[in-house]
């Protein structure tokens, strides 16, 4: 062990309580940062999965104008064939064609204007979690049957149950009059009122015949397992599209609000972190400045004995580094353990449930511990602590041995 290191270590424990209080401030801040950043990442992942998993998917092939102006006539030609081609070329099963139209849905008692989706009964369950939420009856199983599944609130408003019929009126792709009668085979209960109030799905084949779609659809929805696969897959799909009128959109383009909501949240959280880190840096500054000032005589003696001011500066920085390192290790350990525990069991916050429903999340948050969330915050606290020690260290550079030795 070098002399400087030994000196620094011993100096720190001359005031054990003060050192521990400063280390404590860093441990507290670091553990909090690890936990908060992990919770943020965890809830972002849930927001993305929750929002995209319902219907949107990660990528969609659409007619290039459809996303901005969702009109009936902006279609993807021969959509089921294209979906099949994409499934084969990408090796990904979760690819499904979908049509979408507005119609007036009527039961015997009630009528509501709703959006009807035409879906592929075999592929849809792979891209959307709604088919899995059929709580009464069953999901669609025949591509051409006159069957429909509806949300639970819509079913209640229409006063219908499984086995009843729904009539719907709308206009087809060629502006012709479109009408159909379908039997309710299942009722979806997602627990999210807005969705349960509006969702209605019929088989794509039946949808195409009613809305004069030939074999077109409005989108081909692709769901991936890992968000990192989105960008390469987007390029691969783009190159296989039959014509320039089609385009591939990723989730960021399909749901621009989502990324911005995450950015807005990140921004406000980072200001909060910055304040915490500044406060801890002040704590370090205070401690180190005090410990330098109270050793003025000692430093005077040391310089008189031939120690150069630069070495004294290094000594002070080394003391801070040891302290910050202790804070980093203990903080990461504490924060990591807490986060890992909560990450496995999850935790819920009262009053957050309704806010989270907006992003289709259930009430529990699972923090996601990663290398970045574990070390990112504490590393910045470490740097902040080191910066705070620069001023005390610089003060030593102008130390006059004789005056210093006489100081009280």
């Amino acid at each position: 062990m070098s002399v400087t290191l030994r000196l620094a270590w011993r100096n720190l424990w001359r005031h054990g309580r003060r050192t521990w209080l400063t280390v404590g401030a860093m441990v507290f801040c670091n553990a909090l940062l690890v936990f908060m950043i992990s919770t943020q990442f965890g809830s972002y992942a849930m927001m993305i999965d929750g929002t995209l998993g319902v219907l949107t998917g990660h990528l969609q092939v659409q007619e290039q104008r459809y996303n901005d102006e969702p009109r009936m006539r902006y279609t993807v030609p021969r959509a089921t064939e294209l979906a099949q081609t994409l499934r084969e070329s990408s090796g990904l099963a979760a690819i499904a064609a979908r049509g979408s139209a507005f119609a007036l849905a009527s039961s015997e008692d009630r009528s509501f204007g709703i959006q009807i989706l035409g879906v592929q009964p075999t592929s849809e369950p792979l891209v959307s979690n709604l088919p899995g939420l059929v709580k009464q009856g069953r999901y669609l199983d025949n591509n051409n049957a006159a069957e429909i599944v509806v949300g639970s609130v819509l079913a209640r408003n229409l006063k219908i149950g499984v086995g009843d019929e729904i009539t719907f009126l709308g206009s087809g792709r060629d502006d012709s009059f479109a009408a159909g009668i379908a039997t309710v085979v299942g009722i979806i209960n997602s627990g999210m009122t807005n969705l349960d109030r509006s969702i209605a799905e019929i088989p794509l084949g039946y949808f195409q015949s009613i809305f004069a779609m030939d074999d077109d659809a409005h989108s081909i929805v692709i769901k991936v397992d890992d968000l990192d696969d989105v960008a390469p897959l987007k390029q691969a799909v783009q190159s296989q599209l039959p014509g320039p009128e089609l385009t591939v959109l990723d989730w960021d383009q399909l749901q621009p609000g989502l990324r911005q909501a995450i950015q807005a949240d990140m921004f406000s959280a980072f200001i909060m972190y910055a304040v915490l880190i500044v406060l801890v840096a002040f704590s370090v500054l205070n401690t180190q400045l005090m410990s330098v000032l109270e050793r003025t005589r000692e430093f005077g003696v040391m310089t008189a004995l031939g120690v150069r001011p630069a070495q004294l500066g290094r000594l002070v920085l080394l003391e801070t580094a040891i302290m910050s390192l202790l804070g980093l290790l203990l903080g990461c350990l504490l924060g990591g353990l807490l986060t890992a525990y909560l990450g496995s069991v999850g935790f819920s916050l009262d009053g957050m449930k309704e806010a989270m429903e907006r992003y289709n999340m259930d009430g529990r948050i699972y923090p996601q511990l990663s290398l970045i969330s574990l070390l990112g915050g504490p590393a910045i606290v470490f740097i902040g602590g080191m910066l705070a020690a620069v001023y005390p260290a610089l003060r030593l550079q102008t130390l006059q041995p004789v005056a210093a030795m006489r100081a009280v």
Partner: protein
Amino acid sequence: MSEYQPSARILFTLAWRNLWRNYRRTLIMLVAIVIGVWAMILFSSLMSGMVDEMVRGGLRTLPGEIQIHHPQYRDDPSVANSIHAPQSHLLSQLNQAPVTGWASRIKVPAMISSERDNRGIQLLGVDPAQEISLGFDPADIVEGRFLEGPDDKGLVIGRKLAERLETGLGKRVVIMSQDPDNNVADRGIRVVGIYKARLQATEEMNVYAGREVIQKMLKLEDHVSEIAITGGNFRKVVDWWPSIEQAAGPELETLPWMALDGYLESMMEMQTSYNIVIMVVIFLALSFGLVNTLVMAVFERVREIGLMMALGMRPAWIMYQVLLESLILLGLGLVVGNALAVATILPLEGGIDISAVAEGLEMAGMGATLYPSLQISDMLMSTAVVLVLGLLASLLPAWRASRYNPIQALART
């Protein structure tokens, strides 16, 4: 022998002078407290502003702070669940303070079709004068005009809906809904105005028509779907809600906005608890420094404290003196921190442009401008948190200072 009793004045002088013996340390701590207090108030005022804006926006869409419905209407918003227009006692309640505006309106789901496309919408049959008293701003009409009376035969639709339907001013559209006998009623109607709203979803959903025209189309006679009432201040609604509820009678459902929109209510609740959590977290980060400063201040004065005790100062007074030092430090920090926060927030109250993330905020129900709102309650809360927790944190060093044995303390070098 009477014991020496230092006056509060002497204690204060001692504490004050002790603080400035090591002015660097005191100043650093003071700056930390100021930053902490400033951040506490800034955060909570941004949060309050955000939530206020969401609630106000939500109430403009709802609209009103209190709504009266048929008990089944909220579950099943159909024309069958309609109510009479306000009469006698309720009417007189609505026309006196604190009610500043009210509207009886029809609100039913409907379909709208242009020659190009069709959409599901919410059809509002309104009296325009009442809607304006409720908060509809005629300046939001971007093309054409707003309705002129409850018998106006025109239709006012949102900008986004007009775009979706590829229709425009002067064009005819067809609205379809259902009368109480479950027959589909439809009517061709001319678009006379196009409005803009804060949220795109509103522009796509709400379509305004004359109330009498819709009553005739849906064979509703004088029935309406809801009575919406506003009193201006959404925080005070519980004060006057009972009198309205009583006037409306038990057959009707009279609910304040908190019950009508659970999301808004949970946002309000979340705001308060979130503010306290932030304040406590910031304070905890601060408290380590505070305790450190006091521990050091006591430590370097051990001999002096021993001397004071030897001269007859009682341990309790030593403790008060250290607590007073902490109190002065916190008090100074609070004054400067609060002043700084006010100075930062007031110029920003005109609004901060956050349109860069507008779509994300729209998902949460907010607009593109953030108006920080400085609440006295937030300032008081941060002051309370800092003073109470600050004194608690100072108790340990203060208590330790009073426990020294005078002889040992004097013998310390």
